[in-house]
């Protein structure tokens, strides 16, 4: 509707309106309003009369209090029902969304540490290959990668140890790793057995082991020697044991190519020297020459033996990676001790408090989810009402 801004109203208009009202009330008006009064009377007398048949029909319907009739009702009823159905549908969807959001929110609040830890593992792992590559290019360097998981209960299921291995093409790299796991106190033995199984599968060696179990605590330590080619699969298996969860893992690597090459060269030199000395010994004439050459040959052979031992040790380090696995018993929340031992007022009050806290938390999350949904629904309703009102007013202008 067009809104005019004429307040206060013109006195002439007021006088005219008063004359119209007076005319309709059966009062006499000033002569200057006679024409307007006549029109007003004619308009009022032309008021459409309600058909008597319609009056009877309406009276019956009102008497029935608009109870539904077997015959079809006005066409608008169907549309009203449609709107009601759509409203119910929207309300249902909003409720479902609220529940989903509330459930999702509760999940996030309970498992946020798991999500962040999971995300952090690949990130830290991805940063390592670049460091490892640079270390490989250097003469001899060490790389260490540590991934730690949240230690809260229930966050381990999706975690796996990042298997980070430097590129070893043409290089001599020594690898080692540490893996920290947790398990239920009564599962330490089972987890230890799983570790043995994994070592057997990859043809590894248990260098040393220590298992302690009993009561609420327990632990196990393993020093393993794993073929370097199988270190990755072994770590993967060990990080997904049935009864254990990974807490942290550390990967170390050391490039010993230069040391290996130097030892190899020294070995070659020592062998060449021995060969030369042996030739000189064959041509020796005097006893002094023979004794001197013999002593030098002994020294050369000692050097060869030392270099061979060093090379063997280096090869052992390169071919077998050291893996240290530590399993600790997971802390089990101890039940609240009550002096009475059985059900009492204190325990009941404690339980009631817990129930109220959980209920209030759930209600808070639900409200937090419902408020934006409710605001959206209210906004949609308001926009819909405004559009409907505008269309109705437009209908008046276009007739």
């Amino acid at each position, binding site marked *: 509707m067009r809104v005019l801004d004429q307040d206060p109203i013109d006195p002439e208009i007021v006088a005219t309106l008063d004359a119209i*009202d007076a005319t309709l009330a059966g009062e006499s008006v000033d002569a200057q309003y006679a024409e307007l009064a006549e029109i007003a009377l004619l308009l009022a007398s032309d008021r459409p009369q309600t058909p008597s048949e319609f009056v009877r029909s309406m009276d019956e319907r009102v008497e029935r209090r608009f109870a539904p009739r077997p015959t079809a009702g006005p066409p608008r009823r169907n549309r009203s029902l449609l709107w009601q159905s759509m409203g119910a549908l929207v309300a249902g969807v909003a409720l479902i969304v609220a529940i989903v959001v509330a459930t999702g929110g509760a999940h996030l609040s309970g498992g946020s540490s798991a999500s962040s830890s999971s995300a952090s593992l690949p990130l830290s792992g991805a940063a390592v290959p670049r460091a490892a590559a640079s270390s490989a290019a250097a003469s001899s360097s060490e790389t260490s990668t540590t991934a730690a998981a949240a230690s809260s209960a229930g966050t381990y299921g999706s975690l796996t140890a990042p298997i980070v291995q430097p590129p070893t093409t043409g290089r001599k790299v020594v690898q080692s790793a540490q893996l920290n796991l947790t398990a239920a106190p009564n599962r330490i033995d089972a987890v230890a057995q799983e570790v043995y199984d994994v070592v057997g599968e990859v043809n590894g060696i248990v260098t040393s082991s220590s298992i302690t179990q009993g009561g609420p605590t327990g632990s196990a330590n393993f020093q393993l020697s794993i073929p370097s080619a199988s270190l990755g699969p072994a770590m993967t298996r060990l990080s997904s044991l049935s009864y254990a969860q990974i807490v942290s893992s550390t990967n170390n690597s050391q490039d010993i190519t230069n040391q290996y090459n130097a030892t190899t060269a020294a070995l070659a030199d020592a062998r060449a020297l021995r060969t030369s000395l042996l030739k000189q010994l064959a041509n020796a004439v005097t006893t002094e020459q023979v004794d001197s050459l013999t002593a030098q040959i002994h020294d050369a052979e000692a050097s060869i033996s030392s270099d061979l031992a060093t090379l063997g040790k280096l090869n052992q380090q390169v071919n077998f990676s050291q893996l240290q696995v530590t399993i600790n018993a997971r802390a089990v929340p101890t039940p609240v001790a009550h002096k009475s031992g059985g059900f009492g007022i204190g325990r009941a009050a404690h339980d009631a408090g817990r129930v109220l806290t959980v209920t209030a938390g759930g209600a808070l999350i639900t409200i937090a989810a419902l408020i934006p949904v409710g605001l959206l629904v209210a906004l949609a309703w308001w926009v819909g009402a405004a559009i409907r009102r505008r269309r109705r007013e437009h209908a008046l202008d276009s007739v």
Partner: protein
Amino acid sequence: MDHPLVRSVGVTETLTRTSSSGTESWERFEELYRSCRDDVYAYVCTLLRDPAAAEDITALAFERAYRRRRTFDRRRGEERAWLFGIARNAALDELRRRQRTATLATDPEDMAEVQEGDGAEVALRRTAVQTALSKLPAREREIIALKFHAGMSNAELARVLGVSESNAGTLLYRTMEKLRKACNASA
């Protein structure tokens, strides 16, 4: 024409006054129905210019009012204005529906009738008024219907149209002036 020229009375009580039972609420609705039925029909009939559609819309308006009687808020106006607001919405929806179907059930010229007992001059004048009224746009015809056929005061008219009382008076004045000039032109 023997129609009284006074507006409907006895509808000042609210439908939603606090009551201990639904009986009182029903009685107030019934009272509203008795006092406003003819006014609503006259208003809708003038607005739509279709007696058959006016019957449907009037029935629909009262049924909606009955269903929503508990939502009526006394602070937002008199129940008579509330009822006419419902009727107005239903009538405008009907107008929209007609625009979509692009049909007019009744020729506006058919509404012009000469009443028995009129003298020749009065009959001529009445015809001129009816013709001028039929040529008014729907928005102005609605104001005439609310004022002269539904018997509304300017304050009620303002509440139904959603404007201030002074604006409603100005709109009525302009419409009457337009009608008067049209009558004089046809004469």
